[in-house]
């Protein structure tokens, strides 16, 4: 039956009309969509409001002076320099310990390990290391580094505790970066007679180095925000150092830390100038989010550049 033979009325009859079931389905469909959308928003919107609230209350104290001066008058006024510097120290040293071990462990798990029971236990250990509560890491740091290894309450003990705590972050993201290198790249290299390590060094690492870097950056943000593990291993309520001095701490002394400083000024010190805890929180949150955003930007840039 050719189309020309159809009269206008038959066309109208043949046109699809929604049955009541289709209408009902469409209604449920759009209803479900909006419910799920609302659920996503319910998670995000309040937080934006809260952050706006924090920034609004922090505004009177948010300036360069706040960052570079010492706390004054029993931490009721002044800045956060010793805490900020202490956090940088803790993060850098924990990174120096965790990054090599974490990256090498990831190389082992991804490039060397066969799928046997032993390596499954290693995997399980990594997962559990990530799941151990931060306060248990603090107990471990206290028992192992402060007392057993006799480092005392120091930057060294705190950084080592932090590095073990953040190790799984580096392992997980490095593995992801290594996994994204196609197997055929390695096989091509093996075919030329290269050994496993030569292949890793010449093919796998150059192709995954930026992904590994992303993981390292994420470790930085995680380490900067942790409070409990440093609270009992090396961070101290208050310490006088010279404002603006970058090399004010020694490894065997205690330091202040931004995360712990926030806890202190919020819960332990009465009559603090109102904007100071807010400004401390905004500084901590801001630094962590900026570091994280850098990692995310780096990752998406890499994804776009990737040719395979």
């Amino acid at each position: 039956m050719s189309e020309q033979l159809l009269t206008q009325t038959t066309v109208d009859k043949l046109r699809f009309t929604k049955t009541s079931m289709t209408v009902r389905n469409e209604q449920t469909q759009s209803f479900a969509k909006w419910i799920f959308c609302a659920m996503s928003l319910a998670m995000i919107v309040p937080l934006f409001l809260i952050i706006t609230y924090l920034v609004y209350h922090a505004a009177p104290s948010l300036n360069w002076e706040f960052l570079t001066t010492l706390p004054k008058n029993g931490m009721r006024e002044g800045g956060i320099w010793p805490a900020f510097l202490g956090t940088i120290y803790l993060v850098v040293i924990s990174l120096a310990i965790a990054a090599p071990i974490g990256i090498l462990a990831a190389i082992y798990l991804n490039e060397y390990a066969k799928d046997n029971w032993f390596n499954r236990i290693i995997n399980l250990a990594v997962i559990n290391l990530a799941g151990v509560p931060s306060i248990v890491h603090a107990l471990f740091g206290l028992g192992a580094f402060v007392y057993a290894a006799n480092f005392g309450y120091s930057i060294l003990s705190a950084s080592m505790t932090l590095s073990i705590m953040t190790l799984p972050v580096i392992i997980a993201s490095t593995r992801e970066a290594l996994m994204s290198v196609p197997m055929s790249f390695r096989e091509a290299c093996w075919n030329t007679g290269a050994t496993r390590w030569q292949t890793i060094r010449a093919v796998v690492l150059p192709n995954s180095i930026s992904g590994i870097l992303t993981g390292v950056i994420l470790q930085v943000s995680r380490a900067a925000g942790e409070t409990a593990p440093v609270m009992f291993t090396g961070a101290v309520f208050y310490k006088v150092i010279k404002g603006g001095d970058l090399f004010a701490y020694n490894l065997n002394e205690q330091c202040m830390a931004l995360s712990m400083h926030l806890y202190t000024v919020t819960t332990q010190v009465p009559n603090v100038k109102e904007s100071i805890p807010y400004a401390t929180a905004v500084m901590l949150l801001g630094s962590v989010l900026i570091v994280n955003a850098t990692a995310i930007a780096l990752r998406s840039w890499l994804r776009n550049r990737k040719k395979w």
Partner: protein
Amino acid sequence: MNSEIVMNNETTGVGSGRIRAKRSLLSVSLEKLLELIIRLSGVSAILFVLAIFFFVFREAIPITISEHFSIKEFLTSIEWYPTSAVDIRYGTLALTVGSLSITFLSVLFALPLGIGAAIYISEFCGPKLKEALKITIELLAAIPSVVWGFIGLTVMSKVIVAVTGAPLGVNLLNGSIILALMSVPIIVSIGEDALKAVPDSFREAALAQGATKWQIVYRVLLPAAKNGLLAAVLLGVGRAVGETMAVLMATGHAVAIPTSLVDPIRTLTANIAAELGEAPAKSDHYRVLFLTGILLFIITFAINLIADFVIRGVKGKK
């Protein structure tokens, strides 16, 4: 793809042409040494987990012979008077109940939000919005716990006093909401992975039958991804049980079994954080806190183990 590799070899200076058939003994043994270091680093994860258990246990173990301590009282008594002059009691039941109730409530809040958001991101929204939401969620997951605690103490407590009329804003409800907000990003990202792991052929088969998206989610995806979603929830639970700073700041300090939503409570984690600084080193009190740490370690270990088995079950089926 071959040119790609040659390029990479050139940039690193180890072109395949330059790898000689016979290498010097030094370079071979250096490589062996390096591989040994790599293997050791791989094994280090096991060592660290064992070390955590060993060192926490080592500090805790002398308490078991102390006259003030009995393991039965430790687990089943609600009386926690560690510093009492006359009648020292180390019962952690109230703390355990505190931990469990706050975990239960927070998962109750977080579960619908987390799974709902995971479904929305994975099935309903467009690619650009999806990318934006995923980045936002990743940033949410990065907020430090002490900042969450601060939010609970300053913002959420005011909201709770205003809404419920409770005398104190820092309580079980406050802590649960904060913990729920903290664990939602984990539930979303792992839940989304689980939904992504359902093969597209499932969706296509359902579409071919004329199913709507909602029917696909409800009849096909949820049953197919239920193990992954369960694992997401378990990991959310794990985070909630182990969270320290946020609950320390947001739940008030009362070692008691809560009878209402607005009762202040204390959890196992917060108790360690609050008292470890004051307990003299190597005292009974100090050792009991380490023993609490072991209790926590075992609880989270079990949760992670179960979550791992559940995820493995998913992968095995694929």
